[in-house]
């Protein structure tokens, strides 16, 4: 498809981020990593370490709101206190507000933890979506565990600001694309603008590792006459790569090897696997492969058929990161149904609603609401507070940051959204968003919204968007 006339026609829209054009010719920028050297690595030197520091905030009390705590709890007429970057207290109307707190009347409004998108390509497929920005797939080899998504992230992507202002997104995982069986390391970011990607990196977040099942890898490499060209080829390449990695991991690990270091990190349980996989039967095979090789899958992404294997996902404790109702754009998405989330939940397995889209990330709350409603219509009632968990704590859990954010608990990061109405309604929008207690979006203050370098001096600079 050469042209994008009448852009979204023909059901091909979802191919953009997570599939690949065969033209991804970017060269992996690994020289900096190599320069860190062996000795530095041994001294617990952290390459590309986070330099994020929270911005100043004022002690704040949100009073009178309906509060969803992200962990499945709901408080009517609730109070949320935060100061010095942390949640200080959450409770009912009787919760005492300490002296010195700025009191915000939130009656009639709603408070949730900051929304978390477990599957984004902001920065590595930024807008404008020109070829020069196409940095999400190192589609030159089916296994590229050595590449790190953070080296592709353009911090000036205007998409970050829309996710903040319209979606209330405070943390997000940027993944490599799905052209490769092993696409590389992901990076988890705080949705705080920065001149550098290091300035956005979520302090203390574990790395993720992107893998992909099914059509994309076999199409990309099969079209070039090389392995894999089939699903059985996908598994053969994966298994051999894991066997080689195990040999490395079981050895002295003396010689630095960027690819093997990442795979060893997975085998050590320090790097979490995020596996793009649509079909239920393939997810079952992947879980067996993980057992064989000694790692675990944290979440299947785009798992449109997870509802067919909810029992297996529960037993293996694997989350399903899914859209509410996307289907049909590719063969392996043909059986997607709107009841997917509710059916997974009903089996006792973990649901995360994700976007994989620079527009979908602005409406994760609405996608969760659609999935909830589809369940209700088939008799599966899931509470509002539980549904909010799908876009907050469950995402944090699958990303390994649930001890720091994802719910409103004392001591956790003050990542907080004040909504002007029920977040599960189409009519509601974020009114204010705090990250680590700093007010970074305020709909009533024209200047309290980020404008990227790219947008300065351009038509629509600083507009409501």
């Amino acid at each position: 498809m050469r042209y994008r006339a009448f852009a979204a026609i023909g059901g091909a829209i979802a191919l953009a981020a997570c599939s690949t054009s065969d033209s991804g010719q970017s060269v992996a920028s690994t020289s900096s990593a190599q320069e860190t050297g062996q000795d530095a690595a041994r001294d617990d030197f952290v390459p590309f370490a986070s330099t994020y520091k929270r911005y100043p905030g004022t002690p704040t009390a949100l009073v009178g709101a309906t509060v969803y705590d992200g962990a499945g709890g709901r408080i009517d007429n609730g109070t949320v206190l935060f100061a010095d970057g942390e949640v200080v207290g959450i409770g009912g109307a009787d919760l005492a507000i300490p002296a010195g707190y700025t009191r915000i009347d939130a009656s009639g409004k709603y408070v949730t933890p900051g929304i978390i998108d477990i599957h984004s390509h902001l920065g590595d497929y930024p807008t404008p979506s020109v070829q020069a920005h196409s940095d999400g797939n190192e589609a030159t080899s089916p296994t590229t565990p050595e590449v790190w998504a953070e080296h592709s992230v353009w911090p000036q992507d205007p998409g970050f600001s829309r996710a903040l202002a319209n979606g209330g997104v405070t943390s997000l995982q940027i993944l490599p694309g799905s052209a490769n069986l092993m696409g590389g390391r992901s990076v988890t970011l705080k949705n705080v603008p920065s001149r550098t990607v290091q300035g956005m990196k979520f302090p203390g977040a574990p790395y993720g590792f992107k893998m992909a099942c099914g059509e994309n890898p076999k199409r990309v490499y099969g079209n070039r006459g090389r392995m894999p060209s089939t699903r059985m080829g996908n598994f053969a390449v994966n298994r051999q790569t894991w066997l080689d990695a195990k040999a490395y991991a079981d050895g002295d690990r003396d010689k630095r090897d960027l690819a093997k270091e990442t795979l060893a990190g997975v085998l050590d349980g320090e790097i979490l696997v995020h596996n793009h996989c649509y079909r239920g039967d393939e997810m079952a095979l992947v879980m067996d492969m993980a057992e064989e090789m000694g790692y675990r899958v944290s979440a299947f992404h785009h798992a449109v058929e997870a509802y067919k294997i909810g029992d297996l996902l529960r037993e293996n404790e694997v989350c399903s990161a899914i859209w509410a109702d996307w289907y049909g754009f590719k063969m392996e998405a043909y059986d997607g149904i709107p009841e997917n989330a509710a059916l997974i939940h009903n089996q006792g397995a973990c649901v995360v609603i994700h976007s994989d889209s620079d527009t979908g990330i602005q409406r994760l709350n609405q996608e969760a609401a659609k999935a909830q409603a589809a369940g209700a219509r088939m008799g599966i009632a899931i509470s509002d507070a539980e549904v909010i968990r799908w876009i907050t704590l469950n995402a944090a859990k699958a990303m390994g940051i649930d001890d720091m954010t994802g719910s409103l608990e004392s001591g956790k990061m003050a990542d907080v959204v004040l909504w002007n109405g029920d977040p599960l309604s189409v009519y509601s929008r974020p009114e204010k968003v705090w990250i680590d207690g700093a007010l970074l979006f305020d709909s009533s203050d024209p200047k309290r919204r980020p404008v990227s370098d790219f947008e300065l001096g351009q038509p629509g600079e600083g507009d409501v968007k």
Partner: protein
Amino acid sequence: MSTRITFAATLAALAFAATASAQDFAITNATVAVGDGSEPIENATVVVRDGKVAAAGNGVSVPAGMPAMDGTGSWVTPGLVATVTTLGLWDVGAVSESNDSRAGDANFGAALDVAPAINPASQHIAISRAGGITRSAVMSGPSEFIFGGQGAIIDTGADPQPITRPRAFQTVTLGESGARIAGGSRTATHVELRNALDEARAHAAGRWAGDEAQLTRADAEALGPVVSGKQKLFVEAERASDIRAVIGLKREFPRLDLVLVGASEGWLVADAIAAAGIPVIANGLVDLPERFEQLASTQSNIGRMRRAGVKVAINAAAMEQPRYLPQFAGNLVSLQRVPRAAGLSWGEALAAITSVPAEIAGLGERHGVLKPGAVGDVVVWDGDPLEVSSTPVRVYIDGIEQPLTNHQTRLRERYRDLDESDLPKAYDW
């Protein structure tokens, strides 16, 4: 479950017999939204007779003997009108042999006609129908030529005759995509466009240049109704300057019946669009500079154009699936409460997915509204239709109740539980 399937199968069988006649019926005590931009009416009644709306509103009495459904707690709207889509032209987007949404290697452009290619049994038609969409403007995407071919208006009914109006409009793409097709520059697009219109005019006047013509004879003939203004020309343009060029085209070829599609930067030239009287099928929620021609895109685009007096429908092509139309309309309502943003009233938002796209597509005042004489395309919802938690519970097209089952609903029922203690899931159907 078996009862429901039998019921659906009976309906489908009736529809496919093509002899199914519309049933007269009424819905009482419902919240009724007419679709013309007005706000919803509570405790209202809708009467459908002979496949057409007979009456809708308060103070409407149900004729004696007519079956009436108590609509307490329900909402009733006209069927949604999805412009533009590729419904019926593909099964799986990335499975090229199942996808007729563009003809990349064809020798023809403007002459392409989607009408005979539409598959009324398409799952996407069935799924859209279950989402409340009853009519759609279906287009063929420009690919080898800047003209995509002739689009059709279809209904989404479960019957073998989907075409409401064949060859209802022609499509052409300008801007970045048109420039890539035409030869790599907007300069080439403008030459290709004007040359095509000139050749079509010459052909219509009996002065066909034959071998010296750039167009094929079929393409020149197909553009005849465009240059004479008998067929609408849907023009994709995003950047403000490209939109101004479209307005200029109208001065050059005054008979052209133009419709703008996309128009991400429309708000920057809203007054000029309004003055030219060109309606817009606009991208509803695009707010990123996906392309350089969309730098000023904002969700307030539609609201601002409306305020300037432009007739605007929400573009169904600029969302993941046409069934997202009500969600997009609801989002535009939400903007009313966002400081400095421009949204739509609830009534305007519904109109942007019913009567306005129907008017823009040339269906006049007989579609997209619940007014006496309008087609009996009626949707009964279980709540506010623009709210993400709501869904249609009954859909009528030309007064005929439609089945709401499809591949997705069948999968849902099969996997309601994962019990295979007696037989594999494959026997559960």
